[in-house]
């Protein structure tokens, strides 16, 4: 049996080492909101020369304005949506398209609002707070001690902060955009993180009952050892799926999968190396007070 609890300071330092730059980037640069949140412009074009395929247009448009979507709206008519498109760049884009794909005419151009409002974010946050409150109370009741509820929620916040912070770093260096998918990824990781933590806590609860002679630190340590294989194996199956999607799944969902990968890794790490050691720290603090 490895004495994991002995090195708990190292785990907290490691977490801090990731959380600090994450928070720094999040505060300094924030996220890079996509057209889902900011809106953008919509341009409808008709090619008056020969036939033009959606794929060909998509390629040219993507090269000029990354993150553009192209949809066919009729014979040789296309709707182009882009975040950073104004009158001037629209004219420029049309010239480029005319050069490469044939004569083109503008059917309409308008700035469009976001598809996701501020309200969605606000209400999702209310939902998350409510869910966190429920988890705190439910875990505290099921494990008959409030420290389990609080530590599980702390580990969940730890994972969320790292996920969003890492995404902020990725947006600064690789242009990752915060879109509706990031909202889904955060929600997925929230539930995964708690799920994983509860499995470890369940073992602690059981060991406490079965081995009353052990100290609290020993109980937690034994439980970590016993659940580690399961944690790693379970995360591996998820990581296999995510890696396959990341490498083979195409451009559109790459950052979504990236966010899920980061979340799965920190979620697994935090259950064993944050949520469980936090319990020991809590217990020790209380004992010192007495």
């Amino acid at each position: 049996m490895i004495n994991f609890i002995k090195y708990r300071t190292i785990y907290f330092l490691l977490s801090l080492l990731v959380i600090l730059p994450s928070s720094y980037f999040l505060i300094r640069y924030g996220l890079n909101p996509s057209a889902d949140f900011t809106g953008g412009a919509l341009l409808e074009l008709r090619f008056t020369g020969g036939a033009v395929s959606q794929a060909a247009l998509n390629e040219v448009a993507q090269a000029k304005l990354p993150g553009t979507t192209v949809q066919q709206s009729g014979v040789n008519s296309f709707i182009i949506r882009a975040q950073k498109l104004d009158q001037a760049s629209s004219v420029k884009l049309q010239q480029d398209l005319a050069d490469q794909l044939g004569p083109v005419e503008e059917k309409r151009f308008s700035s469009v609002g976001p598809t996701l409002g501020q309200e969605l974010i606000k209400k999702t946050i209310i939902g998350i707070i409510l869910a966190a409150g429920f988890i705190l109370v439910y875990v505290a009741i099921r494990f008959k001690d409030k420290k389990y509820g609080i530590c599980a929620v702390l580990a969940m916040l730890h994972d969320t902060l790292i996920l969003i912070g890492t995404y902020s770093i990725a947006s600064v260096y690789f242009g990752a955009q915060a879109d509706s998918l990031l909202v889904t990824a955060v929600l997925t990781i929230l539930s995964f993180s708690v799920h994983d933590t509860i499995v470890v806590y369940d073992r602690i609860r059981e060991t406490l009952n079965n081995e009353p002679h052990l100290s609290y630190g020993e109980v937690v340590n034994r439980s970590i050892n016993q659940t580690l294989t399961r944690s790693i194996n379970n995360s591996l199956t998820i990581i296999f799926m995510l890696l396959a999607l990341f490498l083979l799944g195409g451009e559109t969902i790459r950052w979504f999968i990236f966010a899920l990968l980061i979340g799965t890794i920190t979620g697994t790490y935090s259950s064993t190396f944050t949520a469980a050691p936090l319990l020991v720290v809590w217990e020790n603090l209380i004992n010192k007070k007495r």
Partner: protein
Amino acid sequence: MILVLLAAGIAINLWSAKTLKFGLDIVGGSHLLLEADMSAINPGDRESALNSLKTVVAKRVDLYGVAEPVIQTAITPDSYRLIVELPGVTDINQAIELIGKTAQLDFRENVATDSATSGQMIFVSTGLTGSDLTKAAVTFNQQQAGSQPTVSLEFTNEGAQKFAAITQRNVGKPLAIFLDDQLVTAPIVNEPILDGRAVISGQFTTDNASQLVIQLNAGALPVPTKIIEQTNISASLGSAAVNASVRAGIVGLGLVMGFMILVYRLNGLLADIALLIYGLLTLAVYRLIPVTLTLPGVAGFILSMGMAVDANILIFERLKEELKAGKPFGVAMHLGFGRAWDAIKDANITTIVVSLILLNPFNFNWLNSSGLVRGFALTLLIGVILSLVTGIVITRNLMRLTYFKKINQ
């Protein structure tokens, strides 16, 4: 039991008339352009009027049962428009009718009879309108089989007071109900109605009664609106992107299944069978509900296959421990399932409740009603519940069958 589930899963997927529903990114859909008539609106308030128009339209689309629409405002210097894109709507005319109608309900009382036009009644507005409603519903007269549908209304407290006052002073007289300035019905008030409930019995068909109910529940459009364009649009991603994810999913699934066999041998194989059943059942449920799948939705489904084996891993690790402690196989298996269940139960109850909070099934105003988050919550809920069934019930029975002799030793 396993065979029944397996057969049901295969049957629904192969022969069901219900096809999987895909989102705009995968199959495209209808693109509607609505123009709001802002002539009566103060120039400074036009943008916010357009935003409230968007909210009402979004609500109507949601109540109509179309998931994953795109609804966005489109402003040019001289026009205020709304773009509405609906995936896979079969009856587009009905959708247009539903979205574009103002649906301003108002109650009017009879003040005089116009002698010039041979006894036509003149009605004036009472100030009671559709905004005084809390709920509308389609109802049928229960005493009469095959009766016409009616629309029942429930007023807010304030609305109920107004309605009581109006009916009190109009006993024996007609009270007219107008929808967008068209007379729907003008029943005679028999007695004052004090409980804030009313029923409209016009010449409704089931279709237009439910349409009116959706419009009343979502609210009237704040500005007159007309549909100026309707086109079909192609998928934004195309089949290549979908094929790529499906291929990735198959590779990932292969890795997961191989891993399970490598680590847990025969048990792993049994878990793999349960996992395949999970996949089939989930797709079947997606068809039945139906769930609209966008590309991220497909990715979410693939991810859920990776998570679904969790219960099995927990159980198998537990089984190993019990066997190591020297227990006979039958006892170890019993204990493995029993003890793993404690952990699985607590972990999954929290996930189920979290998904219910996000799903907001009772339509609380202060919680999310957006399609995006709800769609996610729905797939999460389906995934958790089905993976419990396949991961525990099916695996357990498969193990009982396989280790029949070993267990009874």
